[in-house]
């Protein structure tokens, strides 16, 4: 069935793809995709920082427990984490939590585990001599971490964080499985309704995702170059 591609369907539903049912209903589409990714990223950053710091703690049980949590989450598919959250959150906190928050929680939990590895690598990447020097000038371990190691480590991590944001944008597509009207879900709805243009619809959203992700990938590369440059000086 070779037929010419007909992108009129995309044009007809354009506002639906970008903002969903807004203003008649909740915001959806691209806008919701970016919202989910941004909110989850902020929480994952905090989660990753906490988990990462715990995983380099000098207290062995703490270190082991946090590593166990990190490794278990990293061993699961994101889809599994989403199903768990969908299932457990209402049990823990009662119903009424919107599905988008289920997804944000799942993305946060999942990405925090990966972020923590970035944080850990960043901390490990700071030469030991600096810690020793700081401690010998009388700073406590905590002070050293907070004022000497972390600020440098975080700066080095910026490109990796931006990269995680790219992964996050891609990962939000899984929200469709619990009925959140982000871009992929909208595409499915339009496809279900029009039936005849799956090629056009999925190509279109692939390009939309690509533009969003590629922009941030480039940003991360640029940051990396700048960082390398300023370090060289």
């Amino acid at each position: 069935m070779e037929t010419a591609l007909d992108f009129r369907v995309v044009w007809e539903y354009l506002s639906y793809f970008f903002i969903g049912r807004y203003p008649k209903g909740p915001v959806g589409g691209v806008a919701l995709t970016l919202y989910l990714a941004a909110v989850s990223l902020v929480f994952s950053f905090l989660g990753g920082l906490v988990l990462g710091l715990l995983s380099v703690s000098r207290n062995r049980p703490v270190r082991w427990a946090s590593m166990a949590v990190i490794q278990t989450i990293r061993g699961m598919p994101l889809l599994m984490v989403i199903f768990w959250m969908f299932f457990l959150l209402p049990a823990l906190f009662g119903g009424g939590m919107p599905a988008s928050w289920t997804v944000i929680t799942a993305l946060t939990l999942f990405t925090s585990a990966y972020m923590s590895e970035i944080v850990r690598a960043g901390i490990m990447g700071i030469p030991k001599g600096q810690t020793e020097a700081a401690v010998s000038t009388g700073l406590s371990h905590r002070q050293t971490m907070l004022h000497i190691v972390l600020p440098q480590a975080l700066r080095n991590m910026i490109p990796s964080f931006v990269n995680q944001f790219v992964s996050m944008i891609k990962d939000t597509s899984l929200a469709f499985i619990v009925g959140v009207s982000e871009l992929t879900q909208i595409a499915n709805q339009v496809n279900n309704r029009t039936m005849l243009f799956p090629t056009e619809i999925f190509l279109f959203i692939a390009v939309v995702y690509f533009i969003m992700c590629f922009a941030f990938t480039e940003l991360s590369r640029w940051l990396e170059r700048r960082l390398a440059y300023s370090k060289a000086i």
Partner: protein
Amino acid sequence: MRGKTILLVAAMALVGSLYGSSMAADTLAGVKAKGVLVAGVKDSLPPFGSVDPNTKEYVGYDIDFIKYIAKKLGVKVEFKPVTSANRMPMLMESRVDILAATMTKNPERAKQIDFSYTYFLTGQKFLTKKGTVKSLKDLEGKKIATAKGSTSEQNVKKSVPSATILSFDDYPQGVLALQQGKAIAVTTDESILAGQLGKLEKNPATKGRYEIPDVQISEEPYGLGMRKGDAKFVKFVNDAILEMEKTGEAKKIFERWFGPNSDSPINRGSFAIAADKRGT
């Protein structure tokens, strides 16, 4: 490693007990208090529930029933999209107050949730390319598409055990697989298939190429789904839909979506909403 396992089990048990203790609340009072009825509906399954692309509003048979009930309650209504696969958890976890989502009443489901009286009656059939299927025999060993977690899926496994069942998140994806030759038939309730056929008929590229052969494998009474043990709310909803039948509102809604001039004409036959015990 063993310590971790024990920890995991303990955590699960804790969560499990919390899950067990969660309330059988009074939805009727809750809905009135918050002033809004949250209904789980299908969002791309005309004529039952779909979003109108121009107005971006929900429309359909299921939608009209919910609107009536909300009006009787004197509250606003909020629609949330559900799929066949996730609608039961959505209800049981209080993400929605009521389900109007082409849901067949059956004893297994009735153990988990409560149903209203039957508000729609149909039977499970097949949608196929014209002339390819005349009886169940023609389906043996072939791929049949349906939706995950639906009664349609369970029925067809029993009726045509030799077939391969392709389960999607919802029926339109199955119709797409049929169109592309990836399945020989889509199976679900005639009413849903009629809606899909209507859509195919409207399109010049597919017009006149599909049919619903007269092969029925089960009777499907639809009920509105509510949380278990919520007797007051169930009674309110039952009274509401009985009233709709009496005033002729139910018939009017049926004619709007399934009448001779609709996109998916089917016969209501002798069906009327009554205090029935179908599917339990």
